């Protein structure tokens, strides 16, 4: 089961970092995708007081933030996790948010995936994590839970 967190504002890097850390700390969370308008590469040339693009630290892993967070998709298996996520969001988003339940990430290979990866064996969890035109290595960060 997937959930979509839809904050009523586009999130800054600080809030994204805070929320992702809390969500990733939940045991039931399998996969998380952040989606939103892209942060231009030129952002790094701006003086620090205006800059939005930076590296965030999620559960000890450095992640280059490429987008401003507009939506967060989370794959979970138990409904009780939704309440936990809701609590996290209530603390982090004073401006309001929505949580929708549905299916937001692909679980099957598409024709494009077949063309892109061929017969290569790729783990099921990687499917549907990025758009077709992006390189997996550019967009995907693997966080190992329980130190495994």
């Amino acid at each position, binding site marked *: 089961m997937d959930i979509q967190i839809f904050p009523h*504002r*586009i*999130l800054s890097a600080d*809030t994204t970092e805070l929320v992702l850390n809390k969500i990733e700390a939940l045991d039931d969370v399998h996969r998380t995708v952040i989606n939103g308008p892209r942060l*231009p590469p030129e952002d790094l040339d*701006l003086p620090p*007081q*205006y800059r939005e693009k930076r590296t965030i630290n999620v559960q000890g892993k450095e992640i280059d933030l490429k987008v*401003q967070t507009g939506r967060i998709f989370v794959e979970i298996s138990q409904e009780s996790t939704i309440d936990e996520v809701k609590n996290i969001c209530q603390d982090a988003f004073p*401006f309001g948010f929505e949580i929708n339940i549905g299916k937001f990430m692909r679980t099957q290979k598409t024709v494009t995936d077949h063309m892109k990866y061929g017969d290569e064996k790729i783990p099921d969890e990687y499917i549907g994590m990025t758009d077709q035109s992006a390189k997996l290595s550019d967009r995907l960060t693997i966080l190992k839970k329980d130190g495994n």
Partner: protein
Amino acid sequence: MAQYYPGTSQVAQNRRNFSDPDYELEKLREISDEGVVKILGHRAPGEEYKSVHPPLDEMDEPEDYIREIVTPIDGAKAGDRVRYIQFVDSMYFAPAQPFLRSRSYLNRFRGVDAGTLSGRQIVEARERDLERISKELLETEYFDPARTGIRGKSVHGHSLRLDENGVMFDMLRRQLYNKETGKVEAVKDQIGKVLDEPVVLGEPLDEETLKAKTTIYRVDGEAYKDDKDAVEILHRIHVARSEGGFCPE
């Protein structure tokens, strides 16, 4: 007494305030003349005004009653070029919005040509008059540094979600929030040319002030349907238009 807008809500009252030329709008910030010229981007600060015709005093004008009755505005007298300023107002409780802007500009300023679109509003005037008008528009309630954009082009963003700090989306990122000072600064002019020095536009207004000053009806603010008076007048206009007929045979 002129009747500018119907309705009993605060939004209706704000619309009346903007439209009434006798109502003095609150001045919220100070922006230097040089800053305004920089943001407009039509001439360099200190540069002479370019002209498209000689001053009116030096011209042989044909005899005309209207020319005698109407006093020309300063820019027309000097023969200035016609230039523009264009604003984008966020749907999230921006103080002004395009139709209201046009309505109020035509009531408040002489010699302007206002153009209204759904998400943006342009006003044209002779250059020196435009600079005077722009200063007034930027310093008073018409403008909020976060929810209003000064955008000559690439205007997209008025209906998009705001950034967390309340700033409206702008693909050219002309107005940026300064995390150190808490103020919004214009780092580019209205068409996106980078400025040597940013122009400080001031602190964004807080949510309560914006909700009190806005001229936009919203269900999460004041809903239009709750303003019975305004709705009644709208119905009356609708019926009168329908009964009057678009093209009676």
